[in-house]
């Protein structure tokens, strides 16, 4: 027998900007969807984010970037994720990312990028469909 455990998501805010409306709205929506959510707070380095992901044993990292620094910050986070052997963690990005950059971010290991106007429902569905297996055997 198996049972589904609760999906754990880290909402991460790297970079210098303080635009946290998106991060807070999506965190709220994840909680309403029944996920367990950890929010890093503002201005975290790549290392702080990956350390938090390790400690909290999350299934998903949602990176919110609106400063334009995504091409520097996201690949760095991915490098550290590989170093930490967290390859099965689903990493997605939300924010302002020009079309040309999206392909490069995906090459770097970001699984999906959600732009302005995306509904929170769409992101929740994407996570449920793509997260690593969360079935765990139950003791009889």
């Amino acid at each position, binding site marked *: 027998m198996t049972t589904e455990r609760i999906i754990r998501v880290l909402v991460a805010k790297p970079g*210098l900007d303080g635009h*946290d409306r998106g991060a807070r709205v999506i965190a*709220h929506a994840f909680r309403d969807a029944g996920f367990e959510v950890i929010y890093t*707070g503002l201005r975290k*380095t790549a290392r702080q984010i990956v350390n938090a992901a390790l400690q909290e044993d999350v299934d998903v990292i949602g990176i919110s970037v609106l*400063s334009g620094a995504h091409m520097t910050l996201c690949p760095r986070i991915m490098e550290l994720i590989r170093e930490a052997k967290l390859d099965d963690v689903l990493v997605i990005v939300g924010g302002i990312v020009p079309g040309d950059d999206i392909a490069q971010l995906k090459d770097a290991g970001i699984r999906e990028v959600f*732009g302005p*106007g995306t*509904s929170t429902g769409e992101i929740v569905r994407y996570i449920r469909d793509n997260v690593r297996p969360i079935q765990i055997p139950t003791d009889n």
Partner: protein
Amino acid sequence: MARNISKKPAGRDNVGRQVSTTTVSGVPIKALYGPADLDGIDLETELGQPGQKPYTRGIYPEMYRKRHWTMRQFSGFGTAEDTNERFRYLLDHGQTGLSVAFDLPTLMGVDSDHLMSEGEVGKCGVAVDSLEDMETLFRGISLAEISTSMTTNAPAPILWAMYLVVAEKQGAPWSKLTGTIQNDLLKEYIAQKTYIFPPRPSMKMVVDTFEFGFRNVPRWNTISISGYHIREAGSTALQELAFTLYDGIEYVEWARRRGLDVDDFAPRLSFFFNAHNDLFEEVAKYRAARKIWHKIMTERFGARNPRSTLLRFHTQTAGCSLTAQQPSNNVVRTTVQALAAVLGGTQSLHTNSLDETLALPTEHTARIALQTQQILAEESGLTDTVDPLGGSYYLERLTLEMEQGCWDYFERLDRMGGMVAAIEQGFPQREIQLSAYAFQKAVETREKIIVGVNDFETGDTSPIETLSIDESVAERQLTRLRTLRAHRDTGRVDRARQALSKAAREDVNVMEPVLECVRAYATLGEMCDTLRDVYGVYEEPGF
């Protein structure tokens, strides 16, 4: 025949169309307003004449018949050379005031070569590390003749000091300078979150600038008390107004505690509001703002100079209302919002560019945005008469409700012990967060329609050309910074920083020692480090 083929929400068709019955902020609206809605209201007292108390209808008797609002487009990107070029372009195309956007490292008080600056240099605005960059930024622009607004908060005293020293070098007397520093730290803790120091030392430095300003730079607005960012963070129109005006109260309280006379500094307080899509709600907000501020300044603070009681404000159209889908539609949204600002009697206006949700504007989109204002000013007839919507049953009712809503919030904030205390308890932050989430849910359930996003989608996703800032900007900036550090008088820099540290520790006004640091070419990051050592840094409480 063109036909909308997108799926309609249940129970809605073209005949029995269910129209939205709340404003964009969720305030219920009736089908019709009439004389009964203004029963018992003495319009003469509530409105007065334009240019007369309580200034509901405008702060000047003739408003735009005499002079249009200042068209002030916020701009800045890349290095100081890049932005200087854009400034000259905008001035050549009829812009009448400058407004500087700084990059995130500058706003956060770290130099371009700091670890946290990587990837951020010149991205969201112009990179300024020292006086040298500020000199380049205004090269060929006479500071005695132009008014400049600088969007800077935590490091405001430093960037203002840099501007003052550039003026000094140009031979422009400080008494002639006009402009604004945003310098509103309270809304940083509440909404925009580009804070460095904790609230209390931040408030102390704001009062330092008030004090220095009225003595030395009397025509400068030492603060722009801002609702813009509160709204962008997701507040309602009422929350934007109430929190902003109450921030104003808090600044006046702190300045009075320093012993300043309200009539010395209050005429230099200015405001900054958002213009969102709901035209009448926005106009009501601006009219209520003037009326409430007049009452606060006369009744709560006993101002005697009528100028102390005038609420002058800048407006920016709502960035958060724009869509990445079919970006050309954003020109229309911006026009409606600009219309609200003008009908509400704004003193200056920034209209967003259509590509705002994607990137900083290109020269092309920046020009459309500026010309939107020029069309409103020159072609629409809007400027021919003052407060043309005044007397509308609907608008006057909304204005009264907006005012009452503010007094209710003020009472709660007073009970909490003022805005700094409320922020420490997370109150305004929580209120805004709940509104932001409620709006998002209304969009997702299609209670609120956004054309091209949750209805009338066209499926057209063809990309538009946007401005991109490459990493060569950072390289150029780092080279300049290295050269600067190698060539300046380090002894003078050290002495100036020690004097700044001493002033901060002894709780005296920091403006003079900051000016000396600037003249010595200390960098912005160095000055902020000196202040961080004394004041500490702010960490947002979890909530």
